[in-house]
C-alpha cells in the first residue's frame, strides 16, 4: 500500500526486474498487453511466446514473454501483420540486437 501512496509524495519506490523476478498468468499477461486471452493463446500456439509450465489451466509466463507478446501485438496492430509475420519480425529484430550488441563490444565507434 505504501507504493500507492507514493504516487505524488515523492517517496522512493522499489522496482523489480521483470525478466528475472516475475511470472504472470494468462489473465495478467493478456491484461498487460491489453488484448483478450484468446490473442495470447494464439501467440503461444504459433510459438511466439512459451509458457514456463504447459498445464492448460496453469500457464505461467516469464517477464521476457511479456516484452515479446507486447511487441508482437504492437507489430500486428501498427503494421497490419498477421501473427506469423510478427513472429518473423521479432526473430529478426532479436538477431539484429544480438549482432549490434556484439558489434558494439568489438568496435566502440559503431
Amino acid at each position: 500500500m505504501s507504493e500507492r501512496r507514493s504516487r505524488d509524495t515523492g517517496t522512493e519506490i522499489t522496482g523489480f526486474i521483470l525478466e528475472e523476478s516475475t511470472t504472470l498468468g494468462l489473465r495478467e499477461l493478456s491484461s498487460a498487453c491489453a488484448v483478450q486471452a484468446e490473442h495470447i493463446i494464439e501467440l503461444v500456439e504459433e510459438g511466439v511466446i512459451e509458457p514456463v509450465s504447459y498445464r492448460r489451466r496453469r500457464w505461467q509466463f516469464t517477464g521476457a514473454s511479456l516484452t515479446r507478446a507486447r511487441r508482437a501485438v504492437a507489430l500486428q496492430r501498427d503494421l497490419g501483420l498477421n501473427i506469423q509475420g510478427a513472429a518473423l519480425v521479432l526473430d529478426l529484430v532479436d538477431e539484429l540486437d544480438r549482432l549490434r550488441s556484439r558489434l558494439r563490444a568489438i568496435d566502440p565507434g559503431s
Partner: protein
Amino acid sequence: MKYKDYYKIMGVDRDATQDEIKRAYRKLARKYHPDVSKEADAEARFKEVGEAYEVLKDPEKRAAYDQLGADWKAGQDFRPPPDWDAGFEFSGGGFTGGDASAFSDFFESLFGGRGMGGMGGTGGGMGGFRQARGGGFSARGEDHHAKILIDLEDAFEGATRSISLTAPSVDGEGHVRTRQRTLNVRIPKGVRPGQHIRLAGQGTAGLGGGSAGDLYLEVEFRPHPLYRVDGADLHLDLPLAPWEAALGAKVEVPTPKGAVDLTIPPNTAAGRKLRLKGRGLPGKNPGDLYATVRIETPPADTEDEKAAYRRFADQFEFDPRARLAARGTEAGR
C-alpha cells in the same frame, strides 16, 4: 498551439487517394516502428505518423481537416476557428491507431472528446476490463510503459532515480488530459540493458474498484567511456606496450568494482581477449569482463628512441606481411 501538416508528415499530396495514404502510412510505420527501428527519433516520428494517419485515413476527419484550408504552414500558430467542424458528423468510428493519448494538442483541439467514449481510448484494447461479480462494472487501470536511461555504475550499486512521466488521465467529462508526475524509483542492482523494471500499481488508477495498472520501465545504459556492455558481459580495451605483450607482465585493469591485477602471459597477441570471470554485471549469473589486448607502439622521437628501434629491428627476423606476400604470389600465378 502549432498547426500540423498531416499531408507533409505522410509525404503525400493533398489530393492523394485513400490507398496512397494507406501505402505511405505502412511504409513510414515500418520505418519508424519503435520495436523495429533504431532511428534516434523513431518513437516521436512514429507517433506523429500515427496521428496523421488517424486523421487522413478517416474520410470524415480528413474532410474536416481539409476544410481548415491549404494555406496553413506546419508549425504556424493555430487556433481552430469557432464552429470549424459545423456540418460534420463524427461517427466515432474509432481510434484504432493505438495510443490516442500520445496525440498532439493540435489533434486534441480538433478531434478531442469525440468518439473517444468515457475511457479515453488509451492503449486501444479492452483486454484490461472485466465485469465484476454482481453486475457492477470495474476495470483494471492501464499499464504504462516508458524508457529509462541509467549509468553502468547504477546497475552495480543500485541507485535511486527521479523520473518524470507524462501520463494521460481522463477528466470528469471524458477528455484526455496529460499530467506530469515524478517518481523516485529504486533501480535494482544487476539490471541489464533491455530488461524491464516493473512498478506494480503505478499505472493508471482502476475504475469501480478495479486495481491500478503497472508501470514498466525499459532500461537502457548510457554509453560508458571504458566499458561496452553485451548482455551481462563487459568489454574493455586493454592497451599494452610491445614488451609487456611479448615478455608477459602484471598490469592493473580497471573494473567497475575497483582495479584488479591481471597477469599477461608472454607472447600475448593483439586482439586476444583475457577473461576476468564474474567481473561483469552482477546478478544470479554474473557476467564476465573481457579485456581485449591492444598493442600501442611508443613513438620514436629522440635519437635514443630511434636507436632502440634500430637495435630492435636488427635482432628480429620478422616479416609482419609474410602472409600478404605468400597470398599475393598465389593469386598472381
